[in-house]
């Protein structure tokens, strides 16, 4: 029983990684109703920027917030320049293709600029470990950051007029325009915020998994699975889903299917959720009228 609990705890720690990226995924989805395949690469690229700033001598928190700002601007720019022309298209083909293009460009740009060797990333949290060492200081810090970010995102969408405007723009662009909402800028803002959230995720995750261009590749799949599981339009759901994904993956890996098939577990969850209950555990079910 003890061993089981330890695996759960270890799963929660990994789940923290997924939850942080899942928040960025949910942010983009809520703001634009689009699933961004390049989210992980954007987060990875932001993390490299932070790393570079720290290498150049900037203190950690300075680099952290500056990177967030740069990522925000970058996200807005990407939306305005690259994504905008395809937003009105019905065909998802264009949008997804552009995402894949973005993915490839960011990945190779990072590799070309910073090489592929592993880099350590500093952690701002104290090094002591908790719970008999099963939860490291950084992992605890990661939990705290995820929860704080979650609270901010939730409050933003629920209580601020801007958040309401963004939700409206994504839900019903035409009506929103009639009410005076600048839909185009709402979408751009959504991208900027998601890019910033991605940067937070990357910076928090890098000390655990080491910084390299392929750092976020597979984490993204697990993050998607978590976000879908929890409800892709619900920040709370995404975080719970992310943690659940970590625990599930661990438990399934150790006790059920073997550690080889963890990705298959994610695959099954993604397809299962989408087919059986696309809204996930906590999302809202959408009914389309013909």
């Amino acid at each position, binding site marked *: 029983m003890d061993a089981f609990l330890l695996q759960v705890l270890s799963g929660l720690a990994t789940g923290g990684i997924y939850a942080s990226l899942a928040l960025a995924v949910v942010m983009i989805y809520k703001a634009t109703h689009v699933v961004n395949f390049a989210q992980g690469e954007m987060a990875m690229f932001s993390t490299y920027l932070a790393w570079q700033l720290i290498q150049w001598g900037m203190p950690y928190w300075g680099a952290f917030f500056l990177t967030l700002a740069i990522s925000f601007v970058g996200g807005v720019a990407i939306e305005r320049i690259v994504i905008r022309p395809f937003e009105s298209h019905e065909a*998802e083909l264009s949008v997804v293709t552009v995402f*894949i293009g973005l993915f*490839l460009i960011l990945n190779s740009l990072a590799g070309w600029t910073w090489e592929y060797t592993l880099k350590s990333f500093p952690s701002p949290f104290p090094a002591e470990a908790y719970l008999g060492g099963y939860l490291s200081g950084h992992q605890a810090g990661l939990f705290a950051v995820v929860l704080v970010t979650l609270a901010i995102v939730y409050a933003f969408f629920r209580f601020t007029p801007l958040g309401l405007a963004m939700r409206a723009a994504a839900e019903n662009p035409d009506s929103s325009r009639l009410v005076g909402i600048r839909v185009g800028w709402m979408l751009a803002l959504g991208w900027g915020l998601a890019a910033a959230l991605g940067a937070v995720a990357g910076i928090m995750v890098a000390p655990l998994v080491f910084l390299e261009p392929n750092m976020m590749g597979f984490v993204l799949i697990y993050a998607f699975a978590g976000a879908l599981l929890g409800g892709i339009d619900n920040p709370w759901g995404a975080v719970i889903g992310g943690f659940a994904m970590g625990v599930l993956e661990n438990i399934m890996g150790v006790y059920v299917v073997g550690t080889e098939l963890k*990705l298959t577990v*994610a695959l099954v969850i993604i*397809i299962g959720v989408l*087919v059986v209950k696309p809204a996930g555990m906590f999302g809202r079910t959408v009914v389309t009228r013909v």
Partner: protein
Amino acid sequence: MKLDWRIAGLAAAFIAACALPFFVSDYRTFQFTLVMVYAIALLGLNILTGFNGQFTLGHGAFYAIGSYTAAILMAHYDVPYWATLPAAAAVCLLAGFLFGLPALRLEGLFLALATLSLAVAMPSILKWKGIGELTGGVQGLVLTKPDAPFGLPLNQDEWLYFFTLAVAIVMFVLAWNLLRGRVGRAIVAIRDQPIAARAMGINTALYKSVTFGVSAMYAGVAGALGAIAVQFVAPDSFQVGLSFVFLIGAVIGGIYSISGAVFGAAFVLFVPHISEGISRAAPQAIFGAFLIVFMFVMPVGIAGFLRLASAWARRRIQRSSPVRGEAS
């Protein structure tokens, strides 16, 4: 007039294709064989995503299944290479259809996500020790290239080239036949106006699943041919990047056309060789840049562009020359 040109063009291409191996090195023949293999795979992708509107990022997974089917049959059961093709086709048709069933409920980006996960998970499935005996696990399976039959004076590369050419022609004619008839129109109708199509009595669920199966079948046949050409299969041969490469080829070649598959295949095979000279990271970045640029400028791909260009050229010619039948 139009029909004559196209037939002449195809005939010329066919003659050139047949003559090719005798004028270039074995290495180039091998490369062109791979181009045809990819073209078959891309044709499957075009049918599913271009013509039927179901977005798949998992095409590489079915290519892998086809490769492994051929490899397992050849390595463990001594099945002759040509017999593995129908086997791979059947396995993938079934696999694609089965995957297409739950996929019916998924639209657009979510279907893309589901298929992407399939592609990402495929190498680990192939490595699973439960089927390790059959698949060779991480070590993979080594195959032997066939010699030319009936004592024909062709070496292995040349024979495989002609074999692949024959299979490719069959697959392309099959697709052309499929798409220009009622079935083709139904498939396209489902893409453009799914609700109206259903209202008109088309069984969209059946069509979509079967199209998924057919697309997977094309990938499977291509995979089998690819396995024979490379003489090796391993889980690492089928990473998620392969599905990306297929998407790139389809989009750049022209995802709404049949001929696009050939242009796309040539692009994804040869461009990395050219861009390697610039920098190591260049091939991937160039693929990404091309994807985005093409979406902006030429979403119909090279094939679409050529079609538009030839239509424009024809209109110019008609305008400048006197209308026939009015000769005086």
